[in-house]
């Protein structure tokens, strides 16, 4: 659990949510057009 412990105030979960959203927004289209 030490990885999840956020001692330096860095917004890790916010970064995770943001990158997951970016993947979710783009991957379906990329898969559909078979890139």
């Amino acid at each position, binding site marked *: 659990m030490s990885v999840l412990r956020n001692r330096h*105030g*860095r*917004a890790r979960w*916010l*970064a995770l*949510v*943001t990158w997951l*959203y*970016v993947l*979710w*927004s*783009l991957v*379906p*289209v990329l*898969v*559909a*057009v078979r890139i």
Partner: protein
Amino acid sequence: MNSPAVVQVDPTGGRPPRTGAWAAFAMPGVGWLIALFVVPVYAVMAVAFGSVDPILRTPQPAWNPLAWNFSAMSSLLDRVLGGDLGKVFLRTFAFVFLALVGCIAIGYPVAYFVARKASRTRGVLLALLVLPFWISYLMRMLAWTNLLQQDGYVNRVLQWLQVMDAPRNWLDGDWPTVVIGLVYGYVPFFILPLYSALERIDGRLIEAGRDLGASALRTFLRITLPLSIPGLMAASVITILPMCGDYYTNSYLTSGSPRTEMVGNQIEYFLRGSSQPQTGASLVLVLMAFLLVLMVYYLRTTLKAQRESER
């Protein structure tokens, strides 16, 4: 050492401002609005309050307001307030509400991160957030249609992960599919105005909150969140308005199933799929009236907040 004197320069040179010249800059916008909003809305009203050719079933617009006939609107309102169309309106508002909750849950953290936390990656993330705008909404819905088919990637991945034993038909008229489709389609429109509002918040206010001993959560709840409310409302209005009239999300993701039919689908049906253009035009006006109430509330709240911030 004496500091140089600050000279206040009056940009008008003492002359009264010529508002007429500045107002002229608004003319293209006003002309655009008249040609592409006022005239089309009047045409819809002329069709709604006109008549229908008894043989060809084509609309006969009544351009003279004195000749308007309100019988079609009256019978439509009966259907909206207590009949079959009332259920469609309630379903539409429920879908839009759930989709808005989804947009807030996904869009707020993303906008907050890009605006306030991402420093090195901000440029890349902004480009990636804008990227969905380059792809047509229909194309994005068709992509999901492809993925959600019985032999599509969603079923294959879920079966591979052993979440499901047999493939599920996601496109047979389930409401979660429509809500997820609405969230997917409109969340980029939600994120950008919210990002803009969050990015404008003065960082010194947040620093002051932290310096005065407030925790990160308390600083967010007492400073960032209240200051982002106008942006949150603008983003909500920008997404709610098109979602209420959306028809192709349901058409593509559930093949227009009656179980998930929205107001936009009914309008499309009356105007294109049946010979009831008057009913379709009346439904457009009823939907516009509902959305007008929302817009008036938004404008009143925004103006009130603006006046309070100027005090």
